[in-house]
């Protein structure tokens, strides 16, 4: 019996090659897209799933709340919280903390930049990292020890045993030797905490750093708590505001906390950090969107299969009728055709998995991800795919199986006309559904790409090209370094600041508007006198700051701290906030500026610059205030000659080696920093485009198959029309119109859906493109043209057949 089914199925496939190809290819491509999207999404959801006891580990995150402006979320906590947590909550078993840095490592005279974690002694025990060498109990107890990953051991020691060897790290201006006391397994790829070098925490290293506070001012620790099994974490979370209320000092000025600033603490499960934390790198919403698209594509592919199978029933009707005549029951017929479509679906699945396997490297490169598929290692996934194949087969084969089971043999065996089941309504309905999805995806992809392009062309207010940001220059040698590089003709200018654009500012300064009323808050940025020049930020009124005494708020190595008064520059948004009608009228205005609750100075505005982006490019440019503070100049932005960029960088490297022989030059490219801000959206645009193309291809495959079928069925009618005087144009028009209708209806369905999604998505952008009707109409037309191109061949073919032939056909 089965052999007979298989023979008919296989021979039918071979006989109707085009149909079989379209059917299987459509399904295979659909399944491949479905599987790739799901693998990607699964990977994104699987971040940090590997931690032992991970379900009980939470990171404590701090959000600084400001009364007048938006909150500032961080991933860290202030120092006193550890003890307070342990004293307050008995359900907390243990707490681990670390800080991460990139510091200079010396090995055999060579210098390396090495990211490290400065961690408390229980760190590896808390997180359960496996030791390959060394004693987990004692490795981090000795302050002169270091624990490294296998990879790092390999990097610095090759095949030698790393244990008990020495690595030197540059801490506080000098190299200190550390004994390798443990080698741990390499961290997995999908973790927010890829720690590979762990130094025991020693507060001596940090004392004196501006940001190092052991009170409530700066959130300096990444802090993780492990709660007892079965702890009601929601209740714990709910109690945190009370805890902050009880312990946070009132009326204490500080950079991040103080009288007017609140603090919210959140417990974030370690498994949720990647997608849901304050520093989430992934976006769950987008992932759900992808899953939705995956199912849409699968639906299109199934609809295709269903549609084509229904269109082709005429070719199998005689067989079914004969089987019934010789005694096949309905159940047997249903089983035959369902198993046939399951067979095809599984075949398509095998092809799909091959496509996935072959395309994953490209897909990974395309999206900079590391999705992989290893069915052998994951029997559950294999099982899931088998279920998927069967499910797809069942749903794709349901319609024609049902039709065949109800078929009456006498309708087929005695009639010469072929059956036309379900009417054209079902088929056209499916085409409408497919094209609705395609058109909606096309429109959404168009806008996502257009917005990304718009954003990338957005006037940042400064020129990010050929701007090299050198870090680690907040020290006494930096002037010498600056002067040295400026000697090179390809170094055009050097600007200094505590932070650089895209990073956002951490200072919030307050002033009273000229119109009176409450204090307003401006983002402060400590700069050097040369900052605006290097960034090429245009001046709207007045002048830039200079090295003049009056333009300086704080000198380097100043014993007295801030000057009583200083000249400042603000941006146009700042001028507006302070109540000036235009930039010019702001120049010359003097007012008191609060640096914190207990520090202020008398400021005189000497210049107003054009607004420029400093935070996320998605956010509105905020009012800004710029002043010269020689104590806080961590970053040195070097504008280099576009043509001789490499020579300039070589010169900078050379100068660094001379002036800072104990450390390595670390620099970033401002253009990259800017680009990285678009990365998520660019990726979203790329993925959408890819899957839109796939969805459209599958839809077109379906349309093509359907057209070939329709044309076959209508040859006689077309012959008659020709006899009655229709010309080629009339006939082609007739056929094209038949397929235009469902596409036009699809547009009407797709537009509002696309409009809803696109406008919702664009609302997340402060600087965004506007929606207008044209792109909708154009994607509609595009779909129509694609549809026409798909069916035109058939239309011309049949329209050119001589009537004598077509009429004799039946």
């Amino acid at each position, binding site marked *: *019996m089965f052999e*007979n089914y298989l*023979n*008919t199925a296989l*021979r*039918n496939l071979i*006989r109707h090659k085009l149909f079989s190809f379209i059917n299987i290819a459509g399904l295979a491509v659909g399944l491949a897209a479905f599987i790739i999207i799901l693998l990607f999404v699964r990977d994104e959801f699987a971040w940090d799933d590997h931690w032992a006891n991970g379900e009980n580990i939470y990171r404590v995150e701090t959000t600084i709340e400001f009364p007048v402006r938006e909150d500032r979320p961080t991933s860290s906590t202030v120092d006193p919280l550890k003890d307070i947590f342990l004293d307050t909550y008995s359900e907390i078993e243990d707490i681990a903390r670390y800080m991460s840095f990139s510091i200079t490592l010396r090995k055999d005279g060579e210098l390396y930049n090495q990211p490290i974690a400065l961690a408390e002694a229980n760190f590896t025990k808390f997180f359960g990292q496996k030791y390959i060498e060394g004693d987990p109990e004692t490795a981090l107890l000795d302050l002169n020890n270091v624990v490294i990953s296998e990879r790092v051991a390999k990097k610095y020691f090759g095949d030698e045993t790393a244990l008990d060897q020495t690595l030197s790290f540059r801490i506080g201006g000098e190299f200190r030797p550390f004994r390798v006391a443990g080698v741990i397994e390499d961290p997995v790829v999908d973790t927010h905490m890829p720690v590979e070098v762990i130094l025991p925490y020693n507060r001596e290293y940090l004392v004196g750093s501006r940001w190092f506070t052991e009170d409530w001012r700066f959130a300096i620790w990444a802090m993780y708590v492990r709660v007892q099994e079965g702890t009601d974490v929601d209740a714990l979370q709910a109690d945190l505001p009370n805890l902050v209320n009880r312990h946070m000092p009132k009326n204490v000025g500080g950079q991040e906390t103080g009288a007017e600033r609140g603090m919210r603490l959140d417990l974030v499960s370690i498994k949720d950090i990647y997608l849901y934390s304050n520093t989430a790198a992934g976006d769950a919403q987008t992932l759900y969107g992808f899953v939705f698209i995956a199912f849409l594509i699968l639906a299109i592919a199934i609809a295709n299969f269903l549609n084509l199978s229904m269109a082709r029933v005429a070719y199998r009707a*005689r*067989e079914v*009728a*004969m*089987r*019934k*005549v*010789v*005694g*096949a*029951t*309905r159940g*047997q017929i249903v089983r035959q055709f369902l198993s046939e479509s399951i067979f095809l679906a599984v075949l398509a699945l095998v092809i799909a998995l091959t496509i996935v396997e072959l395309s994953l490297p490209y897909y990974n490169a395309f999206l900079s991800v590391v999705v992989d598929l290893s069915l052998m290692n994951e029997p559950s996934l294999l099982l899931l795919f088998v279920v998927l194949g069967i499910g797809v087969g069942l749903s794709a084969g349901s319609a024609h199986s049902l039709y065949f089971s109800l078929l*009456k*043999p*006498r309708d087929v*065996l*005695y009639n010469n006309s072929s059956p036309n089941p379900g009417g054209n309504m079902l088929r056209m309905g499916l085409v409408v559904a497919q094209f609705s999805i395609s058109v909606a995806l096309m429109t959404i992809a168009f806008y996502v790409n257009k917005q990304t392009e718009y954003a990338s062309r957005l006037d940042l207010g400064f020129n990010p090209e050929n701007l090299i940001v050198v870090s680690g220059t907040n020290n006494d040698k930096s002037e010498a370094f600056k002067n040295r590089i400026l000697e090179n003709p390809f170094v055009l200018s050097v600007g200094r600041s505590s932070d650089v654009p895209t990073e956002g500012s951490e200072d919030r300064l307050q002033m009273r508007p000229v119109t009176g009323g409450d204090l307003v808050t401006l983002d402060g940025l400590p700069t050097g006198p040369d900052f605006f020049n290097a960034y090429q930020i245009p001046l709207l009124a007045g002048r830039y700051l200079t090295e003049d005494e009056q333009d300086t708020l704080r000198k380097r190595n100043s014993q007295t701290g801030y000057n009583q008064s200083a000249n400042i520059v603000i941006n146009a948004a700042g001028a507006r906030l302070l109540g000036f009608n235009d930039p010019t009228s702001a120049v010359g205005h003097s007012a008191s500026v609060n640096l914190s609750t207990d520090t202020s100075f008398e400021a005189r505005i000497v210049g107003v610059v054009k607004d420029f982006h400093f935070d996320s490019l998605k956010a509105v440019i905020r009012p800004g205030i710029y002043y010269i503070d020689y104590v806080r100049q961590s970053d040195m932005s070097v504008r280099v000659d576009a043509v001789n960029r490499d020579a300039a960088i070589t010169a900078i490297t050379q100068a660094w080696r001379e002036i800072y022989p104990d450390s390595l030059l670390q620099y970033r490219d401002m253009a990259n920093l800017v680009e990285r801000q678009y990365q998520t959206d660019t990726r979203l645009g790329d993925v959408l485009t890819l899957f839109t193309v796939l969805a459209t291809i599958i839809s077109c495959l379906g349309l093509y198959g359907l057209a070939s079928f329709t044309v076959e069925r209508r040859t006689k009618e077309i012959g008659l029309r020709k006899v009655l005087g229709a010309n080629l144009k009339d006939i082609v028009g007739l056929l094209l119109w038949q397929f235009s209708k469902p596409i036009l209806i699809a547009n009407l369905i797709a537009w509002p859906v696309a409009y809803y999604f696109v406008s919702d998505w664009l609302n997340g952008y402060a600087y965004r493109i506007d929606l207008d009707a044209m792109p909708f109409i154009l994607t509609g037309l595009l779909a129509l043209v694609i549809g026409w191109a798909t069916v035109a061949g058939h239309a011309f073919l049949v329209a050119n057949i001589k009537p004598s032939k077509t009429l004799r056909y039946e």
Partner: protein
Amino acid sequence: MLKLHNLSKVYRTDEVETAALNNVNIEIGSGEFVAIMGPSGCGKSTLLNIIGMLDSPSSGDYIFMDENVAGYAESKLSNIRKRNIGFIFQSFNLIDELTVEENIELALLYHNIPTAERRERVAHVMDKVGIAHRAKHMPSQLSGGQQQRVAVARAVVGDQAMILADEPTGNLDSAHGQEVMEMLQALNDDGTTIVMVTHSPAHADYARRTINLFDGQVVTENLREAG
């Protein structure tokens, strides 16, 4: 074998009601060879469909082997049909994707017969109709006459007591038509009941009895003298 009593068949569409068969009374005995004749549209095929249980009457009785099957559900009819009735069609109705052998085997497929026995019976019947040398061929590689021989083989491979033939020679030239008629004759001689619709008076002569239909009614029945 079977008895039709006051049997009518009415086709209804939304507006029109057409009586395809009107109070037909026919009795066909076991081992008979009956020809049904009449002009196009007289109800021949409808009659054959009802006898073959591919269709149900609108009213009246259909007694098949002492059982009134007139109101039976499709599955029940299918079960009776597959054990007792074989079909031969004008257009052969062979399945294009199956070989000669497989087409014949199809008639045994739904009978729960072990594969080995199926093969044996198929081989036997292929010998009988002289198509064994074409066993592995596809229908499209055969002449019309050969195709109809395969169809005959398929109709009899299950040892059916009755064969319904709907213009079995309609698509064949006279020589091949003759051949098929002789095959039917031989089957009848072995005791198989044969009911055949035909337009050809010459082929109707093979039957012992001819029923003439006109406008859905039996107008005459002629018995041919033996010999």
